[in-house]
């Protein structure tokens, strides 16, 4: 935690991680992927867009860790360079759900009355329509492309955030400190900003980390259905989708990007699980 922590605490901290190799590994995966997104050239010097036709469809080797694709592009380079776009899409979609969902939940929970009823019916509708249908319709309306796919996935998932936020606001609202602040004459917006929001946001943020994994999967599923990233720009979902024609001849083209997606989802889920409970329980 902080550098002022006594040595004892540091040792405890270390022990916490040593007993959880999976968590450490997950952290490593995420750090690696983040680095890929920021500075892909750290990990590969090969061009993700222009291939070497003579080296097309080669299996994994020392020169091409993940093999090469049909135009001789290095699949590893494409996965590494694809991190930026894939992560941007995921973060965007989670942010859309988080911000819009939290705002709706906050509004419903703090105002109550007809506003609450109205917002919650909207949320009911969003939840009663299967999110994939909603995303499909939205992405058709917004147009193709990774950004739009991310927004569509975000909107389709915001209902859960709204519900949780509302529940938290309702819980916090009745708290003693809120009552006290109100009694002290602090204005409603002030209470909202200074007390309710900070105290109710925690679980919603945890949900946000949890939904990273699902968002990666949903964005890549829509890319797979053909609504996503535009070739030749590498993006994980479209990499898996692009290689599916080669299942019989070049398994590496789908397998490695697919495993990358799986690893990232697994890692984020593991970390969010840790954030959710394990730290508190020690």
């Amino acid at each position, binding site marked *: 935690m902080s550098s002022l922590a006594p040595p004892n605490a540091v040792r405890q901290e270390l022990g916490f991680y040593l007993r959880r190799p999976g968590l450490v590994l997950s952290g490593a995966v995420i750090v690696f992927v983040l680095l890929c997104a920021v500075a892909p050239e750290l990990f590969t010097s090969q061009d993700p867009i222009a291939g070497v036709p003579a080296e097309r469809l080669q299996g994994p080797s020392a020169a091409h860790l993940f093999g090469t694709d049909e135009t001789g592009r290095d699949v590893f380079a494409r996965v590494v360079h694809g991190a930026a776009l894939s992560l941007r899409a995921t973060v965007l979609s989670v942010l859309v759900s988080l911000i819009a969902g939290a705002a709706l939940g906050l509004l419903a929970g703090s105002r109550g009355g007809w506003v609450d009823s109205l917002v919650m019916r909207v949320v009911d509708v969003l939840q009663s329509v299967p999110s994939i249908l909603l995303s499909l319709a939205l992405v058709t309306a917004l147009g193709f492309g990774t950004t739009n796919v991310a927004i569509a996935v975000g909107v389709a998932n915001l209902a859960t955030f709204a519900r949780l936020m509302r529940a938290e606001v309702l819980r916090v609202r009745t708290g003693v400190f809120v009552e006290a602040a109100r009694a002290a004459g602090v204005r409603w917006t002030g209470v909202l900003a200074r007390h309710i929001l900070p105290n109710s946001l925690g679980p919603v943020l945890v949900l946000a980390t949890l939904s990273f994994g699902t968002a990666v999967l949903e964005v890549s599923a829509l890319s797979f259905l053909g609504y996503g990233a535009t070739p030749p720009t590498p993006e994980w979902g479209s990499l898996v989708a692009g290689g599916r024609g*080669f299942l019989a001849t070049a398994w590496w083209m789908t397998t490695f990007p697919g495993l990358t997606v799986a690893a990232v989802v697994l890692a984020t889920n593991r970390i969010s699980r840790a954030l959710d409970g394990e730290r508190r329980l020690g």
Partner: protein
Amino acid sequence: MFGNPVRLLSATGLVLVLGLAAACGTTNAAGGGGGGDAGPPKPGGTLRLGISSNPDCLDPQQVGTNAALNVGRQLVDSLTDQDPANGKITPWLAEKWEVNADSTSFTFTLRKGATFSDGTPVDAAAVKGSFDGIKAIGPKAQLGNGYLAAYKGATVVDPSTVRLDFSAPSAQFLQASSTMSLGVLAPSAYRKSPEQRCQGDGLVGSGPFVFESFKSNQQIVITKRKGYAWGSPLWKHTGEAYLDKVEFRVVPEPGVRTGSLASGQLDAITDVQPVDEPQFAGNGFTEPVRANPGIVFNLHANTTRGVLTDLKVRQAVLKGVNRQEVTDTVLTKNYKPASSILGSATPLHLDLSKELAYDPDGAKKLLDEQGWAPGPDGIRVKDGTRLSAKIVFSLVFNQNQSVLELVQQQLRKIGFDLQIEQRTTAETQQLTLAGDYDFIWYNTTRADADILRQLFSTKAGNRSKLTAGNPLDATLDKQAATVDEATRKPAVEEAQRVIVEQAYAVPVFELTQVWGLGPKTHDVAFEASSRMRLFDAWLAG
């Protein structure tokens, strides 16, 4: 029926080989008969054919997708047939025909003995009923509506003679009469609604196969028409079709389609993706390939918009596209670079490959002369205007995106900024109709040069937004008025030359049909519009 010497020869050869094989008791019939090493065609069996999309409708008179047309073609016969080898119109249901001087009246004499699968005869009244029926459903007949745009009505002269009249010269109708879109359906079909016919209810034709069942998103089954004996003389054999049954399986996933063919779960597939083509080279599989006739994939310019009003700019774009690189890199050797605005499989196609050669220096020179100077990012600028245009496209062909990105890179080299916008099919259609585009990207399949008139004439589609009375209009009208090739050919060639010289549209590549056939599947054939003909297809034991 043995009018064709080649067919007579091969048939004789076949008989000889069969006789020899029988006499000697050997089984090796290879090397003779010209039938390849597969031996003589064998009747019977069920062909399992993987198609890429679900046909929303099966009525060939209504549909526009290949998946649907490939099914419909087997169910109906047409008045005429078109020879895929040379584009000539030949007899089928009609033995002969006469066209009046200005191509407004067509009189067909029907052959005797043909019947619909409900037993009623294919006579003049039935033909009239069928054409009236197509006209009646208007735009629901997606292709036929255009072919019959000027159709006034039909007259039954006698039971085997029918005359069709048009309000404007319609030379294209003769080719149109060979398509499945104008295939003849039985009178009973029109007692059902167009929607019912779509689902196969009342879909009664006189073709070599009969509709059996349609399970949406799953499969369509057609069976052999017993007693069929009025096939087109262009086909390889006479009598009934070889196959007992054809199952069209809807398999949207390209990988599953190719994998299923490779593992023997399907006998043939359509729409082999460029990336999958190498899988079926050799090893017993065959890969029939044919380019689509009609307008090739092109950047169609709106000559009233922005920088594209300038002829020199359009010409520079035309020179700046490296067509060979497009087919080499993004597609395969099965796809041809465009050699005109018309595909090479279109009758009266004129080879303009010289005019369409890649000439980046020529392009740069044109732009320099016009005062377009390279800006800081490499894109040229003149009087504060960037040399830039948008192109709208939809994903009807899977490789569209990659092709356009490559073209974008090529044009960037001459300092032209092509901005690519993907839209839905509906939206692209809307923008096209409204004329709201700089460039649009499309192709059109039609085995007749009149398609040029439909898309370039100011009296029809006018996709270049030209002004009425321009020289191209006159040429296009001229070719529409006659079926006589001697008059038509110069007009069509002139039109192609004008379009390329004026760069009204920038041709890029020819859409091509690529199928995969399993080791046992033989003689699945292309008809003139590059759609499927299953009459001669057969399965080896």
